[in-house]
């Protein structure tokens, strides 16, 4: 089946095309027998070059499993994930290795995703050194450039992650992801752990980077307001299935599915001052 692309006309190939992806986990149930859990149950969508797709859903809907599958951290049970025209599910591990740098992940809590015993400089140099494309002096210069790009000063090279604020840590995580010049960034709740005023700063930085570098974003979140602001397209997941997908504005203004309406209703908002009392 041909998955329809949302953007860019008929002949433009999407950067990422997810086709009928299934991911099954096996867990022991109370009776002690193996039980099959479908974390993803036939998920399909596409992301065009330079676009942002938001994946929203409740906890347990499969959002993070989806991120893991696309970033090659997990191999789907079945289905295909086309990235730059190649199916990364079917690739040999040695080939997949070459794709991995081009898809980078940013996690929710930068205090857990940065090695606390490494200095800022070591954290930034690691991907560059491992990649081995640059000479020693060039690596250092590239690290300085990356810091500037995310709005940090290279005076911070000697500091430890614990000495940075939450916003600075998330900027550092972004700089580390940018080091390998990815085409796709997976933002797994990348703003949720930050203070509101810092969320706006990081959101602005991400939009700016997308404009200058032309990356695509897969924004996994339960914050529908931020999804509405950042995303071109929204995919609503429920129990591992796509229940609704389309242009962000359409989904949020005219939600068709019960679950989408439910998610919208649960969204805390400053405009809710007149909300009727909540029920137990």
């Amino acid at each position, binding site marked *: 089946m041909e998955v329809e692309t949302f953007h860019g006309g008929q002949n433009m190939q999407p950067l990422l095309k997810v086709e009928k992806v299934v991911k099954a986990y096996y867990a022991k149930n109370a009776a002690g027998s193996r039980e099959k859990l479908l974390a993803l149950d036939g998920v399909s969508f596409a992301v065009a070059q330079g676009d942002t797709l938001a994946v929203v859903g409740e906890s347990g809907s499969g959002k993070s499993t989806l991120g893991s599958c696309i970033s090659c951290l997990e191999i789907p049970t079945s289905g295909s994930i086309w990235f730059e025209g190649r199916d990364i599910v079917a690739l040999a591990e040695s080939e997949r290795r070459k794709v991995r740098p081009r898809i980078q992940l940013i996690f929710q809590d930068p205090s857990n995703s940065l090695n606390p015993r490494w200095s800022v400089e070591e954290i930034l140099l690691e991907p560059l050194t491992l990649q081995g494309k640059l000479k020693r002096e060039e690596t250092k210069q590239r690290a300085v450039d990356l810091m500037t790009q995310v709005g940090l000063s290279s005076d911070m090279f000697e500091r430890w992650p614990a000495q940075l*604020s939450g916003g*600075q840590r998330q900027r550092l995580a972004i700089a580390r992801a940018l080091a390998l010049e990815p085409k796709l960034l997976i933002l797994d709740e990348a703003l949720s752990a930050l203070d509101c*005023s810092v969320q*706006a700063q990081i959101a602005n930085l991400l939009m700016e980077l997308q404009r200058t570098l032309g990356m695509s974003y897969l924004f996994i979140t339960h914050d529908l*307001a931020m999804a509405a*602001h950042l995303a071109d397209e929204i995919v609503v997941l429920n129990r591992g299935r796509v229940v609704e997908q389309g242009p962000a504005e359409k989904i949020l203004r005219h939600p068709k599915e019960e679950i989408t309406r439910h998610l919208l209703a649960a969204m805390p908002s400053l405009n*809710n001052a007149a909300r009727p009392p909540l029920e137990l």
Partner: protein
Amino acid sequence: MVPILEVQDLDVSYSLPGGASYTALAGVSFQLVAGEILGVLGESGSGKSTLAASLLKLLPSNGNISKGSVFFEGKDLLCASAGELERIRGKRISLVYQEPSVALHPAIRAGEQVFQVLAAHESAGKNTLRQKTRQVLGSLFLEEADRISNSYPHQLSGGQRQRVLIAQAIACGPSLLIADEPTASLDPTTQMEILGVFRTLRDQLGLAMIFITHNPALLAGFADRVLVLYGGRVAELGPARTVLSSPRHPYTQGLFQSMPQILESTDTKRKTKLPMIAGDSSAVPLPFEGCVFEPRCPDRMEDCRKREPALVNLGESHTVSCFKYGG
């Protein structure tokens, strides 16, 4: 109405290695009456968790309450003896923490953990307390209270764990509940559910509540009054409806403007730069003199650097500490 909690001019500082000290709270005053929900809003480093800890004298050993008073049901907690505090904590004033997975003992069944709180404070016999435990859990879990009671924390969902913590908190019938970011680790649906639980408790038991959060949107339609903390100072305090819909302090205004609103996200506005407050409160050191928000303030004036603004009353018990309104 007589307030059940009256905090006056509270100063709290932490001593740092090398003899320096850091002022976490300065001149914080507010009151709370029975059945009222006060939302305390602040970002990391604003002093909101220090406030919760100082009300119960639970500060870490380098924390020091240098000034002020905390009158609870007519008694100054800061002068209370250790024994008196023991009888108040968990019985008259309860705390609900952010991370239910950390706050609960991983190897003790949920029901037993609620029972232990009762056993620590009440002298009734075991059977009476068991029955009371069932009652409390039953009020929070309409169905399957028994299954929850017999489960270990890891067998429960985040929302269920948070309800167990709430059961512990209300077991002894407190008159004040302090909740420190109780919904931060939950997804929006569960978050709303837990807010509903708090609301119901307030309505049914007449509890007063201090609800600490960094997310202003949670307070809309939930809190009665909102206290905005910035750099350990009260930036703004007033009725929730007024503060949330027409904030007056430049910090509160900037904070609210930086949050995208679903209904405003039309195609023209989407993907545009969000308005933001310059700088980063936890990265920029607070100034020694003048208003603490001055370095980040878009409306700064001559006076702001010289002295700290006093709280100005704007009417309707809405107060703001900013020179724009007199100070």
